[in-house]
């Protein structure tokens, strides 16, 4: 029932917006739908806390600790982002960057996007997972190109082609998976793609095929995670689309893609009995981390800056999943959570800052705290949080990851140290003058929505100092599920 609501509401929302056309109160309706979705997610959570993991609708859908917190997180961020996008898009239309027609498209696609995210998370069927991921790309492509500027079109095109091709590889991987599974689970083909069944028999799956399958899946979904060198669509898409979309792309899509990768990793490692997948993940993670930090160094555009920081953090999480083991997995899951919260919060503030300055160039944004202290402090705190400053949650995860790396993969620690240092210098060196100093900004026609920002930051702060027991239990259970070499 909850699941039905969870998936139905956003889908209905998309349809409603598509049908009822451009309305003045569309943003509010958007919020209402997102709120409903979030409540459904909460209900689901409560039910799972009461009854444990679920298998629903002929095992086509399932909820286990791994995806449960992601579902809640996704619904939550979708809600806060819709809250943020309410004044933001209004201001955009006042500035004349979007027409009512496009706003209609925007809201409809927004709902569709959150539907695909939730579908990808909750489905038990690897094929459906693929379909949902592709759907996510398609629903966001038109959002990226919302402004119809040359830049946005280019970004959209790259996004479409790269992710399309990538996802095609993932499909081939899925086919191979199915091929291997069918040998074990029988040809009736109904259960052969169900993750739970695959997980049950993973040790008997054919290793050589699964190795190939994993490569295709990794390249496919990895493109969406933004792992270097497959990441090239990501900064463009983040920078050129409307900021709420940047927020959900960074905050949700990357997480879901990483989720898919890890699901596959679980199966493959179970069958391979070798550390190949782990090593691949670690390699991708480190490469993304290093490349992203080096790109950070040269940024002029604030949204590109934080887009690259997303790549960096996905790299860290991937590296942690690669190390495996209870602690590293725990840390990686925590990192996914706090990163999506922090990063979306940052994008909220960035959006308003850019609107105030009338430009995304960081040199044009100066002295935020003198004109609007809340936005300024929001950006400052958010950046510090994302840079792994305690007592924010990002530090908690990085603490565990680094200490683990020091024991398990000492060779990697110099790289991590250097990368984190460079990232700190790059980001903080840009943020400080934007927040401090003399101001040259203007006021906005609508009051910015800062509730989402500070809610997110508060939660991140909380996670740094105190992790609720049941959340910790999910993390632990998921970490156990993911296992490691």
């Amino acid at each position: 029932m909850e699941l039905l609501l969870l998936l139905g509401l956003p889908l209905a929302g998309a349809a409603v917006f598509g049908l009822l056309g451009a309305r003045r109160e569309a943003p509010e309706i958007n919020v209402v739908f997102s709120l409903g979705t979030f409540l459904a997610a909460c209900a689901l959570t409560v039910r799972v806390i009461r009854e444990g993991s679920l298998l629903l609708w002929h095992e086509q859908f399932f909820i286990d600790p791994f995806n449960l917190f992601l579902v809640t997180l996704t619904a939550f961020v979708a809600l806060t982002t819709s809250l943020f996008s309410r004044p933001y898009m209004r201001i955009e239309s006042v500035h004349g960057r979007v027409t009512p027609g496009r706003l209609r498209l925007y809201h409809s696609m927004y709902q569709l996007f959150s539907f695909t995210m939730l579908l990808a998370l909750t489905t038990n069927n690897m094929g459906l997972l693929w379909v949902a991921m592709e759907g996510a790309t398609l629903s966001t492509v038109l959002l990226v190109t919302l402004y119809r500027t040359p830049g946005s079109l280019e970004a959209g095109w790259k996004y479409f082609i790269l992710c399309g091709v990538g996802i095609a590889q993932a499909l081939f991987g899925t086919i191979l998976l199915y091929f291997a599974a069918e040998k074990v689970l029988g040809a009736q083909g109904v259960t052969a793609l169900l993750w739970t069944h695959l997980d049950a028999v993973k040790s008997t799956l054919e290793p050589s095929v699964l190795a190939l399958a994993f490569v295709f899946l990794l390249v496919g979904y990895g493109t969406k995670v933004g792992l270097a060198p497959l990441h090239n669509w990501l900064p463009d898409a983040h920078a050129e689309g409307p900021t709420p979309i940047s927020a959900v792309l960074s905050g949700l899509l990357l997480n879901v893609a990483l989720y898919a990768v890890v699901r596959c990793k679980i199966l493959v490692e179970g069958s391979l009995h070798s550390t190949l997948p782990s090593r691949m993940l670690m390699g991708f993670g480190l490469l993304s981390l290093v490349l992203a930090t080096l790109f950070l160094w040269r940024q002029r555009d604030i949204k590109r800056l934080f887009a690259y920081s997303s790549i960096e953090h996905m790299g860290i999480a991937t590296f942690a999943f690669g190390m495996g083991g209870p602690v590293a997995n725990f840390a990686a899951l925590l990192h996914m959570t706090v990163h999506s919260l922090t990063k979306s919060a940052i994008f909220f503030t960035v959006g308003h800052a850019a609107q105030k300055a009338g430009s995304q160039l960081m040199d044009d944004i100066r002295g935020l705290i003198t004109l609007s202290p809340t936005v300024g402090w929001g950006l400052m705190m958010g950046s510090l949080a994302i840079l792994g400053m305690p007592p924010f949650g990002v530090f908690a995860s990085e603490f565990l990851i680094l200490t683990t790396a020091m024991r398990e993969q000492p060779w990697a620690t110099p790289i991590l140290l250097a990368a984190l240092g460079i990232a700190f210098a790059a980001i903080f060196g840009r943020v400080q003058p934007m927040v401090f100093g003399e101001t040259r900004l203007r006021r906005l026609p609508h009051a910015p929505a800062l509730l989402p920002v500070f809610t997110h930051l508060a939660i991140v702060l909380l996670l740094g100092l105190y992790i609720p027991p049941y959340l910790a239990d999910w993390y632990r259970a998921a970490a156990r599920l993911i296992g490691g070499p």
Partner: protein
Amino acid sequence: MPQIALDQQLLDACAAVMLLLSFAMLSQRRIVSLVNLYAVQGGALATATLLVAWRTGEGHLYLSAALTIALKVIFLPWLLHRLIRRLEVYWDTEPLLNVSGTMLAGLLIVVFAFGLAQPITQLASTATRSAIGIAVSVVLLAFLMMITRRKAMSQVVGFLSMENGLFFAAMSATYGMPMVVELGVALDVLVAMLVLGVFFFQIREQFDSLDLHHLESLKERD
């Protein structure tokens, strides 16, 4: 039993045709004929699917064959042709890598693809297992084509023929995926094409051409 041998031969013929068509696409520079080639490839794929369906009697394969014909032989080519006419893009400019070079790369890829397909082929129990290698090389060749082309339109065709390769692989390795997945995939392809249609017009009105060198401004190198 010669009869079986016959449809076996037919299947192999289809596979060969698909590979051939991929190479043809790789070398073809007229977009219109590129689209036609794509349609033919879809046809070959559909034929292969029908043969397998008839042979194994798997109901859903008939369905997927019908789906293939409807989508990849009729609808998409029609849509593409319409786009071409509306956008007046008939020729692709010189590819980034000249034809002979592309061909050579293609050959290497085919070799690699067969190497890749070996473990799968050994395991496969289907009659069509020998075609797996070809399916993989179709996928990779399409990839290569996307890399080498300069026009958005031909990249899309490459994308689609990659889709074909994937279907062919699914069909030849496991007699197709579960129905729900096939439907989903088909839906996605359809939506993708519609989105692309919209897209092309946006790009067009922005740059009044579909040449990709307009789309190279967002970069780090300076």
